[in-house]
């Protein structure tokens, strides 16, 4: 009747887990290579529109030839009334506001120039070639975007990018 007798000699041989770290490291390296670091979550809420045939900006990001600015609804809905059309401009994660100008588009020029000055000399590019990427919410009125365009035109930052979500190029 030893069929149900417990093994008195305890557990079997230990499972060799020596190669587990190797496996995990491999996974780790995969993710390090395949992903890019997340930008800080913007201070405004943004739902981007869709579009076809977009350009991937990764190459420009890697060479840091691109500055992002965000336009969207402020996270705190009660603040929305403070802004023209209810949309706020966020530069470097700070919502721009001043007493007289409600969404402070004129700060864009200042911000662009300071970005340029902060860069080390070997990475400096002509301001006309550095892309200014506008990430705006679907419902942003075009008026705000054109106001920012005017600001960029004044400092000769000619290159501009309108961010969208690529909805794929497959045709049905």
């Amino acid at each position: 009747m030893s069929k149900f007798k417990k093994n008195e000699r305890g557990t079997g041989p230990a499972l060799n887990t020596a190669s587990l770290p190797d496996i995990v490291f491999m996974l780790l390296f995969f993710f390090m290579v395949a992903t890019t670091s997340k930008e800080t979550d913007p201070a405004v809420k943004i739902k981007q529109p869709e579009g076809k045939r977009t350009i991937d900006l990764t190459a420009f990001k890697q060479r840091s030839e691109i500055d992002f600015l965000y336009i969207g609804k402020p996270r705190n809905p009660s603040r929305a009334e403070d802004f023209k059309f209810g949309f706020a401009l966020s530069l470097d994660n700070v919502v721009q506001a001043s007493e007289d100008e409600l969404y402070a588009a004129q700060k864009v020029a200042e911000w662009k120039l300071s970005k340029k000055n902060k860069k080390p000399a070997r990475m400096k590019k002509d301001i006309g070639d550095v892309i200014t990427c506008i990430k705006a919410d679907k419902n942003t009125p075009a008026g705000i975007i054109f106001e920012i365009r005017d600001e960029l035109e004044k400092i000769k930052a000619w290159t501009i990018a309108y961010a969208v979500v690529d909805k794929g190029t497959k045709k049905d």
Partner: protein
Amino acid sequence: MAKREIPEINAGSMADIAFLLLLFFLVTTTMDKDQAYIRKIPEKIEKKNTENQEIDTRNVFHIYANANNELILKDRNGKNKPVFVKDIESISELLYEWYVTNREFFDAEKLTAADKQKKAENQFPWYSASSANDYRIVKENYFSQIEDIEKLPEGERKKQEENLTMIYNEIQKAEEKRKLFKEFFGDLKVPELSDKAHIRIEVQEKTSYELFAKIQSEVEEAVYRVRDEECRAKFGESYEAVKGKAIQDEEKYEDDKKKWDLIDLLFPANIIEVLPKN
């Protein structure tokens, strides 16, 4: 003294450490890419003569979006034609047509009377035939203009010098074109879109960014289509592949950069975005 055995290092927690690192990377990174449409803001040119210049409607592809997010396309007969958001996708078709219709009629010397009639009647921009040689002449002309400026009296020279940079830019452009045409076409004639042809996107202050982006998307789709067709016919490669390589590294993929420049020259996308101020 007896050799002391080195105790084995316990590597059991190595996996935990690696997992922690892995999780950190999973949380702080993202896989989605930033996608966008890149546009150039055109430089303002101070024009001296402000008299009304006649604009040939065939050279403008006019897309107008009003404050209620409705689209209006200029009809080929010059009349306003409302396009509802439902069939916004047709813009790329119309724009494609606008680009290619007159391309076959580029060489005026080879046109039959019927072709000429067709070309004159339709409302699409005209193509002209030019070759590397023509651009050599353009360049020489500009140089002679610069020499003329030197001869002017002091007072008038200042005014003319302001135009110098503009003229210089023109020379650069002509020279670039000449080089590319020479390399890829030799002395053959090349169809060139009228330099006045442009796409005009007009929006209102309250037009939503979604519609604006949608228009950009349609324009990009049409431009991509004409360029891709040309690129495949000429180089047997997709436009996307050529452009992708050139963006990644201009020096390493020098040939692709040249191909990209050539295709963009053959089908320029002059996009003008305006918001009329009242």
